[in-house]
C-alpha cells in the first residue's frame, strides 16, 4: 500500500458544482410546493380540489370554516343530510381567448367536500358568511344534542 498525499479538489476543477447545488435546492423545494401539502391532505393524486376545512364547537353551535378563495357567493352550495354537511360549488375559469396559461396551480371546476358533524344540528337555522375567501357556516346544535344539566334531588 502506498500513501498518496491528500489533494483537496479545487473549486475551479468543478465548474458545474453550483448546478448540482441548485439541483439539490430544487429537489428540496419540491416538497415545499403547495402540491405536496394538498396531496397529503387529500390522500389522492388527481382528486380535484378538497378545500381545507376547520370545525369548531361550543355548547350551542358547530362552526365549519372552509378556505374557498376566489369564489362568487352564488356559486357556493351548502347542504345537510342527516349529520353530513356538504359544501360544493364551481369555480369558473376567467381565462379568455388569446391568453396563454403559463402555470396553473389554482383549481378550476367543480368541487365537493363533505364532513360528518359530531352532533345533530338544526337544519333550519344554518347560516353562513363568506368573507376574504373564507366561508364560515354556523350550525346550531339540535335541542336533543345539547348538553343538559339534570337536577338530582337527594332525599
Amino acid at each position: 500500500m502506498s500513501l498518496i498525499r491528500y489533494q483537496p479538489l479545487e473549486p475551479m476543477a468543478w465548474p458545474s458544482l453550483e448546478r448540482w447545488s441548485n439541483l439539490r435546492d430544487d429537489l428540496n423545494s419540491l416538497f415545499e410546493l403547495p402540491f405536496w401539502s394538498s396531496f397529503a391532505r387529500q390522500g389522492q393524486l388527481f382528486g380535484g380540489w378538497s378545500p381545507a376545512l376547520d370545525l369548531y364547537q361550543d355548547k350551542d353551535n358547530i362552526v365549519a370554516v372552509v378556505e374557498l378563495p376566489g369564489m362568487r357567493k352564488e356559486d357556493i352550495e351548502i347542504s345537510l343530510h342527516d349529520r353530513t354537511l356538504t359544501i360544493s360549488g364551481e369555480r369558473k375559469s376567467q381565462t379568455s381567448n388569446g391568453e396563454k396559461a403559463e402555470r396553473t396551480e389554482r383549481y378550476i371546476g367543480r368541487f365537493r367536500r363533505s364532513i360528518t358533524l359530531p352532533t345533530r344540528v338544526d337544519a333550519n337555522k344554518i347560516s353562513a358568511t363568506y368573507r376574504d375567501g373564507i366561508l364560515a357556516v354556523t350550525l346550531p346544535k339540535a335541542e336533543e344534542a345539547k348538553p343538559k344539566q339534570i337536577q338530582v334531588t337527594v332525599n
Partner: protein
Amino acid sequence: MNTLVRENRDADRAQNEQFVAPSASVVEAGDGYTLEVEMPGVNKEGLEISIENNELTIRERRSLPTVEGTLIHRESRPENYRRTFELDPSIDADKINAKIDQGVVTLTLPKAEHVKPRKIAVS
C-alpha cells in the same frame, strides 16, 4: 418569451418563521401577464408586496375569522403565506398593479413598451 415568472424558492430559507407557499396561476396575454395568488383569509391590511432585484415577493399575515368555541378538527395551515417570483425582464416593474378579492390576489404585470411587438415601416 418562455422564461417569465419563475419562482425563487430558497431565498430566506434560513429564517425561523415558517411560511406556506400559496397556490398561484400565471396567464400571459398579449401585452402582459396576470398572476393570481390564492390567499384565503387575507385582506388588504395584511398584504405586503415588494419588488427587489427583479424579484416580486408577496407575503401576508392572515386574519382568521374569530370563531367562538374550541377547535375540534383542523385542516388549514396556521402559517402565514409567502412566495417569491422572478420577473421576466420584459415586465415593466413600475406599472405593476395589484388587487385582492375574496382571498385571491390578482397582479397585473404589463410588458414594457419597448418589448411590445411593433411594425417598422420601410421608407
